[in-house]
Structures are given as structure tokens and as C-alpha cells.
């Protein structure tokens, strides 16, 4: 058998195989209409976050801008969602705040997930040994408080900024990934294919990253997509109590909090930012659910 020909055949096949698997994944994902709605929502949110200046009708209102003549106007034809107490357009500010919300979600997950996954992999690989117990006890400590409370406490030390509240949530969030991966890794660790790899002399790194990790991918990915919504919610909660982005930076939680103080007047200052939070989180949740279902059916 001519191995060269078969190798090049394999190469061509894998390119088209990759495209086929993309098509297959899309087919499975799109079966559930709700997930597609989520995907559309996510795309919209990302677009708004990346290019707010082209979408907002009054981009300059996103910073410190005053126009007291137009202050506190209810929704009308010029200012679609009304204006706040310094005359800034609510719609524009909401559009500009998407970026902060998304940064919060992406930032937390991109930092917490790798740390948590690596810790979980280590603890899983060494499961049964002392080092593993130590790691998991540390994880337990970080999970012994509700994440929001721990994030609150950590934010208290740091001065309130978007970045700091992101760090605060990350402090407790990595532990969820560690625990999740530890569960999968420690059960996979004793499977035959891992043991045989060890017998063949594979290095530790190979075993951890090439044998154990691939089995954890689907739970990790599912959690990552579901986490976006949760983390954005937490970020909004933190800024609602004043621990997130500070004025004049536009932030959804802060806007709700400012509007709340003026209740029952100027209801548009609370309702619209709140609705924006809901829509962003909803989109990510629907999308995340779809990804989770797709990964689950793939396994079956």
C-alpha cells in the first residue's frame, strides 16, 4: 500500500471533513429555533458592542455631556428612549454600555476558565494524592461563599471600576471550573486508555492535555456559553450597588440604579436599561442552551 498517497488523501479528506462537521453542527444546532434566536441575539449584541458609534443616534452623549434644556424627557421622536437628568439620550448610552457588559463577561470567562481548568486537570490527574486534596480544599474555600458575596467583598477592597469588578468576579468564578473539570478528569483518569498511555511511557503533560482534557471539552464549552449570561448579570448587580463602572461611563447596572433613585418619576431611566440587561442575558442563555443541547446530542 502506498503510504504517501494515503497520507495526502487523508489531508484532503480532513479539510472537507472539517467543513462537513461544521455543516453537521449547524444542522443540529439550528433544529431548535430558540437557539437560533439566541444566536441572532448574540450576534446583534456583539455588533452593538463593537461598533456603538455607528449605531447610536447621539454618540457624544456617552461621555460627560450636559444639555439641561433637554433633561428628563420621556420617550419621544427625537430621543427614542428619553433623556436622563443631564439631558443625555438614554438609547445612545444604553448602546454604548453594551461594550462594558460584554467585556465583563468575556474577560471573566477568559481568565477564570483557563485557571480553573488547569487546576481541575491537575487535581484530577493527581486524584487520590495529597496535592489533589489540597487543591480541592482551596476550591472548596472559594466556593464556600455565594459567588456574588465573595465578589462583593473583593470589590470592597479595590476601588470601583469595571476592571476591578471583573477581577472580583473572577476570584470566585475560577473555582466553578476547577470543580467541574475535577469531576470529569478524576473519573476519566482511571479509564483504560489513560492507563495504557501511561504504560506506553507518555509524559505527564501528554496525558493531561491530550488524553484527559479532550474528554472535558464539552462540559467546559457548555459551561462557558452558559456563563456569559450569568456573569453579565452579576456584573450588572455589582454596578447596581455602585461597585462597577463609575459615571460618566455608561453602564447598564449603574443606569438602573440612578433611575431607581428617581422613582416613580422618569420611569424610562430604569425600565429601558433593565430591559437591555434582560435581552443581552436572554440571548446568551438561549444561545448557550442551544450549544449545550448540540453537544449533548453529539455525545449520544
Amino acid at each position, binding site marked *: 500500500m502506498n503510504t504517501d498517497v494515503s497520507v495526502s488523501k487523508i489531508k484532503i479528506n480532513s479539510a472537507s471533513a472539517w467543513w462537513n462537521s461544521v455543516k453537521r453542527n449547524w444542522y443540529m444546532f439550528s433544529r431548535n429555533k430558540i437557539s437560533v434566536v439566541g444566536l441572532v441575539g448574540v450576534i446583534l449584541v456583539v455588533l452593538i458592542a463593537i461598533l456603538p458609534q455607528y449605531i447610536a443616534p447621539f454618540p457624544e452623549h456617552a461621555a460627560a455631556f450636559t444639555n439641561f434644556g433637554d433633561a428628563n424627557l420621556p420617550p419621544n421622536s427625537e430621543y427614542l428612549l428619553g433623556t436622563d437628568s443631564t439631558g443625555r439620550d438614554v438609547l445612545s448610552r444604553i448602546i454604548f454600555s453594551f461594550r462594558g457588559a460584554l467585556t465583563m463577561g468575556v474577560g471573566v470567562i477568559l481568565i477564570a476558565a483557563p485557571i480553573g481548568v488547569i487546576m481541575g486537570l491537575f487535581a484530577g490527574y493527581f486524584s487520590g494524592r495529597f496535592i489533589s486534596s489540597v487543591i480541592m480544599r482551596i476550591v*472548596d474555600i472559594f466556593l464556600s*461563599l455565594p459567588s*456574588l458575596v465573595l465578589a462583593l467583598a473583593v470589590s470592597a477592597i479595590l476601588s470601583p471600576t469595571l476592571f476591578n469588578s471583573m477581577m472580583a468576579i473572577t476570584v470566585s468564578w475560577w473555582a466553578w471550573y476547577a470543580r467541574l473539570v475535577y469531576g470529569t478528569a478524576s473519573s476519566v483518569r482511571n479509564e483504560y486508555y489513560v492507563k495504557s498511555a501511561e504504560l506506553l511511557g507518555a509524559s505527564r503533560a501528554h496525558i493531561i492535555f491530550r488524553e484527559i482534557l479532550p474528554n472535558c471539552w464539552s462540559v467546559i464549552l457548555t459551561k462557558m456559553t452558559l456563563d456569559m449570561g450569568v456573569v453579565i448579570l452579576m456584573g450588572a448587580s455589582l454596578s447596581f450597588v455602585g461597585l462597577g463602572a463609575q459615571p460618566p461611563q455608561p453602564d447598564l447596572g449603574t443606569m438602573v440604579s440612578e433611575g431607581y433613585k428617581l422613582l416613580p418619576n422618569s420611569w424610562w431611566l430604569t425600565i429601558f436599561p433593565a430591559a437591555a440587561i434582560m435581552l443581552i442575558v436572554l440571548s446568551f442563555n438561549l444561545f448557550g442552551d442551544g450549544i449545550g443541547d448540540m453537544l449533548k446530542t453529539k455525545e449520544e
Partner: protein
Amino acid sequence: MHGIKYIIKRLAWSIVVLLGLSVLIFVIARVIPGDPASMALGPTASEEAKELFRKENNLDEPLPVQYIYWLGDAVKGDFGKSTHTKRPVSQDIKELLPATVELIILAAALEIIIGIGLGILSASKPGGMLDNSVRVTSYLGIATPSFVWGILFMLVFSYWTGLLPTVGRLTRGITPPRTITGLFVFDGLLTGNFEAAWDTFKHIIMPGTALALTGIAQTARMTRSSMVDNMDKDFVASEIASGIPKRKVISLYVLRPSSIPVVSIIALDIAAMLGNAFMVEQVFSYPGVSKYCLAAILNKDLNAIVGVVMVIGIAFLLVNIFVDIMSAFLDPRIRLKENSA
């Protein structure tokens, strides 16, 4: 007996974790920039007053020593004095905890009854109208933070319709009932003070529901999916083929194995409420321990922060142990795996 040994082991571990938590929080609290003395006494205090304050609070000692002092006091229940209420932290906590607990009890009851109820109803006719509407609304429920619900309720039920009071726990002028449990609704009913009981209820219904809504949505979804997964299993077909009526199969034979993951979620959610209640307590100015915790954090009141965090941590750990016990109770495989044939 296997069960008791397990509980003791868990408790012992929990104490270790609690100690770890206390170290973590202590370090966090002490790392706060700024001079605790000036923050406590105010910027106009004299240098001697600050020096005295530092001595009293062992602030000149190295960190580990400070921790030992704190630990010694803490196990006696003394968390020091709050710098923003000027009262012992333990007293503050003791006074404010029952209010939050009452709120949580209401939220928990709503979550269990409505959440599980909707989940069962959804699951008994998957794809039906009720099922689809529950699924859609639960997405909304999960996507909305509790403070938004709180504000919505406030707008609709207080400002626009005037049905319910806006803030606080009791309307001014109504005497609180004699303290038996600290829970006004219960105490009021027990002592015949129906006015206070009803008034308190009117005050807690909105924050309680706002707190519970996310949990209701999650519980309903989890219950539904767990039950639907189980309904596809062979043992259900076997039971139906044996002539057991479908209603009994669902309400007993499907519900029990399905409830195992649901109980975990509900219990953890309830435990998290202790901390997460701060949002609704803030919106409704409800005098509970969560709002106190938030104020402590915003005021950088170290003693209060540490004290409240420890209390929340203990509650959370107790609930975790409870979840383990309940899981073992509901699932004999966990309970008896040691003795299986």
C-alpha cells in the same frame, strides 16, 4: 452507623473550610487600602485617639497575630465593633438576621411550591401549551436580575396601583409582635397580633417574590427536564405496562428519582439567597442582614464585613451538608453503595 460517621466527617471538613474562609476574608479585609483608624474615627480625630484605636484593635501587630486575636474572639461570638453603626457586630447581626431569614423562608416556599409544581405540570404533557409557556417564561425569569424584578414590582404594585407598601418591614405606627422566633409573620400569628402579621406580609411579598423568581424559573426547568429524562426510561414503560395509572407513575415513580438533582439546586439557591438578598433588600430598604453587609462593604467596615461573611459562610456550609444528606436519603444508591451485594 455509616450515616452518622459520614455526617461527622463532613462537619469536620467544613470546619477546616470555614477556617480557610476566615483566613481568606481576614486577609482581604485587612488589605483594604487606607488607614482603618481614620476611617473608623473620622478624619478629624486626634492622633492619640487614632493611636488608642490602633492599640485596642491590635493593628500594630503582624497580620498572623492579628488573625489569632480575631479568631480567639470570633469563636466566642465576638466579631468586634462595627465602625458604621458603632455597635457590636454580633448584636447587629442578631437583630437583623431574622428579617432576612423571614424573607428567605418566603422565597424558598415560593421556589419549592411554584417551581416544582410548574415543573411537574410541564413534564406531564411535554410539548403541550402549558409546557411551552412555562419554558418561554422561565427563560425570561432566568435572564432578569432580582433587583429588576424588585423595581418592576415596586412600580406596578406600589407606585402605580398603591396596593402594597414600598419600603421597610413594618409600617410606622404598628407595633411589632412579641419576639418568639424573630419572624414577624409567625410571631404575629402566634401571639394574636394579626395586624402586625398582615402588615409584615404585605411588606415581604414583593421582595420575597423578586428574590424567588430566578430560582422558580430554574427549578421549574430543572424539574421538567429531569422528569422528562426519566419518563423516557424503561422502568416507566414497565410500570405503565403493568397497569399502574399514569398519574401515579408520574407523581411517585418519576418524581422521586427526578427530585435528586432538583433538591440540590433548590438548597444551594436558598443558601445563596442569604448573600444575594442584598439587592432586593436595597431596593426595598428592607432592614435585613444582607443590606447591612452591603453597607459594611461600601463603608469599608472591616469587622462587620468579616462577621457577616463568616455567618453567611457557615450557613452555606450547613446547607451543603444538608444537601448531601437529602441526596443520600432520596437516592439509595448513594446511601447504600458501601454495603451493596
